[in-house]
């Protein structure tokens, strides 16, 4: 009993009773998914997979990781990705592949050669099933990291407070990565909205360490180099004490206790600048 004759036999079996096996496979997978995937979609997915599998066995035997199984693997990648996005568990994804074993089982009993064929098929499908689990996990990872990124984006809104004044209300823990995002978004907002005043409000920030303070200082200096003035507001007594204890120097950077104070300052500055500009352009 060589693997070639095993593969040949499997191929004959798979092509010979194609329609019947496909229908059975789809039915058994459909029961495990309990109607969360439409019949038509399942039909298309598994139908394609079945045909690709038949083709691959004919061309490349039973080496599931070989080059002849390229199409099968790409179909499995697609299937795993779809399932992962729709919230299926890895088991449910893998079972879709394993179910084919049970479908072929009745036809593979009888003579001695059948045992060999069945074992070969089992090995192949186990391999492909594991592949879907791997792919499933990878897709979940991707989803998680993209969500983390979105969360970071969402948590740093830049709002226009007044004509020529933008503000960044920060809520929650500040870390280096987040401060970096704040910096980039704020500077871009200054350019986009043609604003000369920016207010970073840290009322909702419970603690500030040296690294974060350093980042805030950098943001202010960068804004200044672009021709805008940046004020930090909402510095809580606790934070002010910490900053002084840490030896952080804010130098000539304007800081205010409340957002209202900062806004008043910014408006006065904007007003003064407007007046100067108006005089200058006369």
């Amino acid at each position: 009993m060589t693997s070639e004759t095993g593969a040949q036999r499997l191929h004959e079996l798979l092509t010979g009773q194609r329609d019947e096996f496909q229908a059975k496979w789809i039915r058994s997978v459909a029961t495990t998914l309990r109607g969360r995937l439409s019949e038509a979609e399942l039909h298309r997915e598994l139908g394609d997979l079945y045909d690709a599998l038949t083709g691959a066995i004919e061309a490349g035997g039973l080496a599931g990781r070989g080059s002849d199984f390229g199409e099968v693997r790409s179909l499995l990648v697609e299937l795993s990705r779809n399932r992962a996005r729709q919230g299926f568990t890895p088991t449910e994804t893998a079972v879709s592949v394993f179910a084919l074993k049970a479908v072929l089982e009745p036809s593979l009993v009888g003579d001695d050669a059948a045992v060999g064929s069945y074992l070969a098929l089992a090995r192949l499908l186990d391999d492909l099933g594991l592949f879907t689990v791997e792919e499933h996990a990878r897709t979940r990872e991707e989803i998680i990291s993209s969500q983390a990124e979105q969360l970071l984006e969402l948590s740093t809104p830049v709002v226009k407070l007044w004509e020529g004044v933008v503000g960044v209300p920060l809520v929650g823990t500040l870390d280096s990565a987040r401060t970096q995002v704040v910096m980039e978004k704020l500077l871009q907002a200054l350019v986009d909205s043609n604003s000369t005043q920016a207010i970073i409000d840290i009322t909702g920030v419970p603690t500030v360490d040296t690294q974060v303070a350093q980042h805030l200082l950098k943001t202010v200096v960068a804004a200044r180099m672009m021709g805008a003035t940046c004020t930090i507001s909402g510095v809580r007594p606790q934070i002010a004490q910490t900053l002084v204890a840490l030896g952080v120097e804010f130098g000539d950077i304007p800081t205010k206790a409340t957002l209202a104070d900062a806004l008043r300052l910014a408006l006065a500055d904007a007003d003064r600048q407007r007046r100067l500009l108006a005089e200058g352009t006369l």
Partner: protein
Amino acid sequence: MSDRVPVMKIGDVLLVSIQTDLEDQTVLDLQEDLSERIVAAGARGVIIDISAVEIVDSFVGRMLATIASISRILGATTIVCGMRPAVAITLVELGLSLNGVRTALNLEQGLALLRASRPEPGVRP
């Protein structure tokens, strides 16, 4: 090889619009050209528009400050305008703060700032 940056004259303002990424020699040439033009044209203001510049290294950053100091000595106010966020971040990361250089968001604001900041002794037109 070294392309010279054009220096344009509008009234008593010299406008330098930098269109390419700066090489060291280009900046040195600009420093030389500009100081001569300020004297020759009797310029009161210099505007350096760097909105097309995507990459600035520490040398160029320092040279901008040097150019500003030179023109101040020659009696002209220098305003650097249009710095991109990425460039500003890079300069900050390099530890440069361009102290003593006046900045504006864009050319329009730079011009207005220059007009506004100029002391106008005597009669107003």
